[in-house]
């Protein structure tokens, strides 16, 4: 029993404890609240960094607590877990700063930041969980703690959106629960193991294994917004911009995609899934989702809604990467967790800035917005171009590896999907950029706020710039040992193949 055993728990507690305190803070104490938030983040980042170094040197971090007879609550920091942990904690940091700028001073911020921290706790828990039941627990906590954020505004619209979100995700959760229990009844273990543990039963319970896999995919697919389970995501954009960032980039959607990665690699193992002939359907669904999301995005005028459909499409890259079933494609898919995260968060923060500073919600109102808010628009443009897959931005790396991986595994049709989706991406992002940069601004903005020094509040301006910077960096310095891609390579080498 050394301190290393408890570090996974500390990571979780370092965001959970501040969340509990924040809940009880009165509205007025915003300094203390900000301090607590940042303190929690720094603690988390500290521990995560510690574990990164440790894991790099093959240190093991495993925490166990008996939950049920024969079932433990266990947290383990492996390479993949840390990858997702790192992503969410860093993006959390950025989003929190943004959220402080966006929401501090408005009503009920204690509740907001409390649930915000709780969301992160749950996400980190999802990332670190070492077996399916722990995963399920945090997954559902995540579902629940995102709900108050979505209906934070307290309007009828947000209530309906929240209920729809909940309906989808809880139904997904129920399927997942069924799958997990079923699997447990058959295999009597739920620990994630490299290359999976289902092979023990696949001979005997062929059909059951298929059904369980389907249940898992359906369950995670809800959060990952796989077509046709994506219905909640576009509605949920009624939430404040930081929440959208959280949902789309940091936590919720990612948790679903991450779950699929876990299931495919560490519950079933690639071979078993291929054996069961489930990879191709998964890839097909992912492809359909990619195209469908892009097509829907094309016809949205509401900016956030367009971004939401874009997310539907982009997250499926991850799944597609997994489903192609080759190491290269898997690299592309997994690294897209980070790439999509930084790019999408940039876009949402940008959209939030437009809405907050100028009252612009629709693309048709965005004429010449680049002249009014150049820095934000630069960040937004980087994000958008990255999404399309223009080199050297991060999105390009993903598509490159995906395409390469597809060829590697002999699934050439994927290339058409990638090309088509890139075209569609371009079709729905480029007009925005065109409007923003090249058309002349209108006489007045719908609801403009003037800030003397910068184009908008500093705390609103910096985060998107940073993330845009990240997406550039990740694309440019992809070969350095600390880039996400290198880490993914580490994961793939150590755990998957």
């Amino acid at each position, binding site marked *: 029993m050394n301190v290393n055993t408890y570090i996974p728990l500390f990571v979780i507690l370092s965001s959970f404890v501040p969340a509990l305190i924040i809940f009880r803070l009165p509205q007025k104490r915003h300094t203390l609240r900000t301090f607590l938030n940042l303190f929690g983040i720094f603690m988390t980042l500290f521990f995560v960094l510690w574990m990164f170094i440790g894991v790099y040197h093959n240190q093991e971090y495993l925490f166990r607590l008996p*939950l049920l007879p024969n079932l433990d609550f266990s947290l383990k920091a492996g390479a993949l877990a840390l990858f997702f942990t790192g992503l969410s904690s860093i993006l959390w940091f950025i989003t929190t700063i943004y959220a402080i700028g966006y929401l501090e001073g408005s009503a009920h911020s204690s509740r907001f930041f409390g649930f915000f921290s709780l969301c992160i706790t749950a996400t980190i828990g999802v990332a670190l969980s070492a077996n399916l039941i722990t995963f399920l627990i945090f997954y559902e*906590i995540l579902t*629940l703690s995102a709900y*108050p954020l979505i209906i934070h505004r307290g309007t*009828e619209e947000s209530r309906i959106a929240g209920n729809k979100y*909940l*309906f989808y995700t809880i139904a997904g959760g129920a399927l997942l629960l069924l799958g997990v*229990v079923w699997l447990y009844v058959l295999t009597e273990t739920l620990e994630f193991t490299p290359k999976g543990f289902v092979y023990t039963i696949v001979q005997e319970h062929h059909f059951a294994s298929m059904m369980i896999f389907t249940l898992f995919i359906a369950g995670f697919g809800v959060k990952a917004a796989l077509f046709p389970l994506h219905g909640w995501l576009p509605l949920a954009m009624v939430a404040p911009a930081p929440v959208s960032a959280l949902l789309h980039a940091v936590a919720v959607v990612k948790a679903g995609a991450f779950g699929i990665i876990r299931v495919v690699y560490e519950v079933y193992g690639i071979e078993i899934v291929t054996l069961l002939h489930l990879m191709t359907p998964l890839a097909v669904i992912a492809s359909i989702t990619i195209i469908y999301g892009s097509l829907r995005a094309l016809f949205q005028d509401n900016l956030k809604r367009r971004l939401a459909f874009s997310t539907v499409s982009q997250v499926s890259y991850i799944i597609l990467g997994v489903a192609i079933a080759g190491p290269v494609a898997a690299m592309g898919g997994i690294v897209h967790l980070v790439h999509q995260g930084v790019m999408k968060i940039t876009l949402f923060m940008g959209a939030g800035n437009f809405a907050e500073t100028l009252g612009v919600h629709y693309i048709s109102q965005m004429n010449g917005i680049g002249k009014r808010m150049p820095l934000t628009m630069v960040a937004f443009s980087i994000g958008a171009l990255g999404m399309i897959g223009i080199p050297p931005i991060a999105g390009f790396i993903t598509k490159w590896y995906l395409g390469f991986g597809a060829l590697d595994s002999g699934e050439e049709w994927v290339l058409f999907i990638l090309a088509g989706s890139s075209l569609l991406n371009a079709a729905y992002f480029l007009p925005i950029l065109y409007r923003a940069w090249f058309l002349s601004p209108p006489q007045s903005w719908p609801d403009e706020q003037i800030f003397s020094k910068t184009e908008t509040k500093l705390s609103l301006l910096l985060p998107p710039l940073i993330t845009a910077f990240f997406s550039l960096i990740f694309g440019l310095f992809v070969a350095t040992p600390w880039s996400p891609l290198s880490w993914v390579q580490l994961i793939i080498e150590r755990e998957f193949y």
Partner: protein
Amino acid sequence: MIEVFLILLPFFGGILSFIIPKFNKVIGLGTFVLTLFFVFGLGLQLLDKGSYYHFIGGWDAPLGINLYVDGLSLVMLGLTSVMGLSLSIYAKKYFICKQSLWFWTIWLFMIAGLNALFLSQDIFNFYVTLELIGLSSVALTALSDTKEALTGAMRYLLITLLGSLFYLLGVALLYHGFGSVDIVILSKKIESIPVAWAALGLMSIGLLLKSALFPFHFWLPLAHSSAPAPISAILSAVIIKASLYIQLRLWSSLFIPLGADLYFEVLFAFFGSLAVIWGSIKALVQTRLKMLIAYSTVAQVGYLFIAFSLALGGISIAWSALVYLILSHALAKSAMFLVAGNLLHFHGHDRIIDLDRIAQRLPLSTTAFALAGVSIIGLPLSGGFIGKWFLLEASITKSNWVITCTILLGGLLATGYVFKVLGFTFTKTAFSQETKNISLSMELIPLSLAIMAIALGFFATPLFSLMEIGNPFFIIRVQP
């Protein structure tokens, strides 16, 4: 010896608070604290010595009445005393002067009856305790003094009497068939003759009436929803379970050896599933909060019987599921009822769509409701989740997919009705409403109950080892 005090103390407290009404609150609370203390002592003793009998009056079974303490009764006693203490603290603030004059005596007598029931081992003694519990809960229900409450109480009284009569008829048949009213002796003597089957049917009907399984649930919503909040809480949390507990005892020692489980397994599963679906749907369409919670109880009773049916089917894990569901439902549902009581007090109504920004104005109550809701739905990590996990495990082991689907569907519907309420706690109503202040303890008690319901999820392993003391489900283990 300690177990006797669990019965005597509440009686004593009740009488004392009747004779000296001036200090009834102090007496009541003091009694509950002491009772909890004794339950604790009993637990320690049980861990030390294992299960044991107490021969009342020194007369052994066929003639006298035996008390029996094992893990199951300990768990139920613990639940009762925890609920009793917390609801008493709540009730201290809740009841206005005139009501509280008689409240404490009846309340303490009810707790005494519950404790006596959980300790008993004698089917006629069960009857008397059932009547004690029934009459006192009717009297307590009628305390709210509204038209609904009185009607609900009356309906409840009639049903509880009817149930008791059915049960008593069964007792009479068993006595005349096998010459004893002690469960252990009966379990040795019982054989498959028509009287045993008739008694089985009659007793089951009577107890099902009392525990409000689906076709017999019609009396429950009104009674539970119109009673004063702490009473609603105890009704849903413990009283319903008391008759289920008797069923459990009867089946595990008398009726399973009879070979009755084969038929009743299907029956219980069928009606349990119907109860889950029907109760949840009815809850979903309710417009009043307390009514919604009451219908949710109907649904949850369905779960209990599904677990019961699976347990009869020979899946031992279903017994654990049953007890776990009982515990977590008790804590969560009482928290919900108390929150409803708070809202009723706060707004003067409990219409769901007119809950005006409760999430902001009564954050503690809302949190309590949400946490309790989590447990009711069975989301991780909560007591309800553990129960549901076992239930699913049992049903999948049995490859009973209908039940599996019902459990999942019930969970979804539960999400629907819980979050229907929670959604409206965030929104603002069009008109302004007058509000009253709520004392802190009235908010903290439901919160702590809800937290207990959640925390139950963390203590499954120790709780199970506690429950196994004396092997309450012994027949099941013997059977191959």
